[in-house]
């Protein structure tokens, strides 16, 4: 079944949890015992309504403080598709969580409180969805019931958001505006009876009509080798398969390929998925590829089509989102993990810190603090085979790993 991954960001106040709860409830995805548990917890806290955030905020600290700290994953499905929501907190001190949630998502839902309109938090959510190039953005203008389902309120907010959208560097991004009331269930799953002036899709209709090909952009064929499969049994004595996942594009039997970094060329002899052979496999497939020639290939090497080579470089410029409490500083060393490649790197410069509200950038003073985003230059011990993030997401992003603590300290998007 098709899987669609959605990112939501926001605080309890804009009704994000209510919206998610409504999606689950109206698609019959909440079981009786879960509803019962939410009821009990809501009562215990003295609420006279069902607080759906209690279903999504899984940690004790989150429930105590009534906030979302971490990324939570929520699942629901229709007869058509499986959905995974990465639910993240919306405040500036959780930028890293928003970036994390957005990195695995194809669609973003940005919530706006109809009474408040476009606020600072809206800027930040949109900025992150822009930076990470989320192809489809739903702007859900919520709490329409509290403004009398007034069309002019909706149109005003839409216009303000359009102004924000002019700052976007991502022209192919599809932005749609949907007036909703999560509390009353208007335009979430069911069409609203209160807003005859809105002829468009409900949120669920919009999601149901999206297909993977609408939201994926990796065009070049990339195959990063995870491990080499050599069974050494009698039956498969000479079997030497390269196991990995196709990141973008597709590979066919007979394709002329180049192996990086050796730059050796060969042809694809066969493509296996488990014990079956296929003529072609597309992006997202975890396959095993056999080549016509005996070439020495190991984990971290990459197979590409010979007519679309990636860049092979030791010097990188990247937009980095910093995720560690220890500052990123010029001169520091970090591991770069890029696909299945892991290379030591040195930070040669931190050019600036970029404001997450589209207001521009400022001097970085040679450091990036937790939750800051900036332009960074790195020198690698060995070259990596990459594309820009704009042209190929999965081959244009990397993580930075702290040499001493092993923490995932940051994420980079290659420029």
């Amino acid at each position: 079944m098709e899987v669609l991954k959605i990112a939501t960001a926001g605080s309890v106040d804009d009704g994000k949890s209510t919206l998610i709860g409504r999606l689950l409830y109206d698609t019959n995805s909440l079981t009786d015992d879960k509803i019962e548990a939410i009821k009990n917890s809501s009562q215990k806290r003295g609420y006279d309504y069902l607080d759906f955030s209690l279903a999504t905020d899984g940690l004790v600290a989150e429930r105590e403080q009534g906030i979302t700290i971490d990324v939570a994953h929520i699942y629901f499905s229709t007869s058509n598709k499986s959905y995974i929501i990465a639910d993240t907190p919306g405040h500036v001190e959780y930028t890293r969580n928003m970036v994390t949630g957005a990195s695995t998502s194809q669609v973003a839902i940005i919530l706006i409180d109809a009474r408040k309109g476009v606020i600072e938090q809206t800027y930040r959510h949109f900025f992150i969805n822009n930076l990470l190039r989320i192809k489809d953005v739903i702007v859900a203008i919520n709490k329409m019931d509290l403004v009398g389902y007034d069309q002019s309120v909706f149109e005003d907010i839409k216009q303000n958001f359009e102004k924000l959208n002019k700052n976007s560097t991502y022209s192919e991004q599809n932005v749609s505006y949907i007036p909703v009331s999560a509390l009353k269930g208007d335009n979430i799953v069911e069409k609203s009876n209160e807003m005859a002036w809105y002829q468009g899709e409900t949120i669920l209709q919009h999601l149901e009509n999206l297909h993977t090909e609408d939201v994926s952009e990796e065009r070049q064929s990339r195959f990063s080798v995870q491990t080499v499969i050599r069974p050494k049994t009698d039956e498969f004595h000479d079997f030497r398969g390269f196991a990995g996942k196709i990141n973008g594009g597709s590979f066919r039997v007979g394709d002329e390929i180049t192996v990086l970094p050796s730059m050796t060329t060969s042809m694809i002899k066969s493509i296996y998925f488990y014990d079956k052979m296929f003529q072609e496999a597309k992006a997202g497939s975890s396959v095993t590829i056999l080549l016509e020639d005996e070439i020495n290939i190991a984990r971290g090497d990459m197979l590409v089509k010979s007519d679309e080579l990636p860049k092979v470089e030791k010097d990188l410029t990247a937009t980095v989102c910093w995720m560690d409490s220890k500052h990123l500083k010029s001169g520091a060393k970090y591991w770069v993990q890029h696909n299945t490649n892991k290379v030591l790197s040195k930070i040669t410069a931190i050019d600036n810190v970029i404001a997450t509200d589209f207001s521009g950038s400022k001097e970085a003073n040679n450091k990036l603090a937790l939750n800051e985003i900036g332009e960074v230059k790195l020198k690698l011990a060995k070259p990596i085979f990459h594309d820009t993030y704009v042209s190929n997401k999965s081959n244009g992003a990397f993580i930075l790993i702290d040499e001493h603590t092993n923490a995932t300290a940051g994420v980079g998007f290659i420029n």
Partner: protein
Amino acid sequence: METLLKDIGATINQETQTLQVNELENEAIYIFREVAAQFERPVLLFSGGKDSITLVRLAQKAFWPAKIPFPLLHIDTGHNFPETIEFRDRLVDELGLELIVRHVQDSINQGKVVEETGKYASRNILQTTTLLDAIEEFKFDACIGGARRDEEKARAKERIFSVRDDFGQWDEKNQRPELFDMLNGTIELGQNVRVFPISNWTELDVWSYILKEQIEIPSIYFAHKRHTFLRDGLIWSAQDEVVFRAKEEAVKERTVRFRTVGDMSCTAAVESDADTIEKVVAEIRISKISERGARIDDKRSEAAMEKRKQQGYF
């Protein structure tokens, strides 16, 4: 069991079409391969339940035609359903896998843990000690498990690669962010990583996969007649002595099946006529009760799972 063998030894038929992508399956295979490449001594935690059986199938797919490159570890509480143990041994035998079994009873005999008593006595918590001892004994650095994020709210916060310290503890507030599909398995000596390849699967996804792949699972998942009794609105097995039953709790034969397979002492049955995988899938599709609704171990408190996980439970 024929189905498992049939796939492994199948003659390869040349197919002309394009491979259709099942995203969840491909993600799981990708994770298995990352484990094999990033760790020295991985192990697959095998409970005999449907999720761990699904893991075995996915691991077969990840490494075919090579064998699964790590052993299975079963922490035997001594309270397992006999059907599960019988199934486990058959599976391991037919696939030629290496199985390691460690017993909670041994931890009790060694005085490391104390058996619970009373109406709700269970060995569920005790198995954490046995598991941590086994990890230390074999120096496992990656333990692959079948936990899913949709099962329980604390598990919804779990990473795919989840780092545990020397004491097996989960620091839930200080987890590594996981971006895109990049998995950071870098650890210190003595630490280990819990790996969850089917994190993003739901119960229905697992069952649909079992149906599509025709994977054999233990008989207790299907409707059968069983002597049972009622307690707290749940149906308990009365034909095994490990489940405590008070005199006033009357035994009655019911047609039931189990939706999850934990210990007999903490897993309740559900009334059901679903005696085939097709019927089970149909039943789950319309079910109004969640899978762990029949797990008494989660009902001890609102944060029961989070607390157990902090201590090293799966």
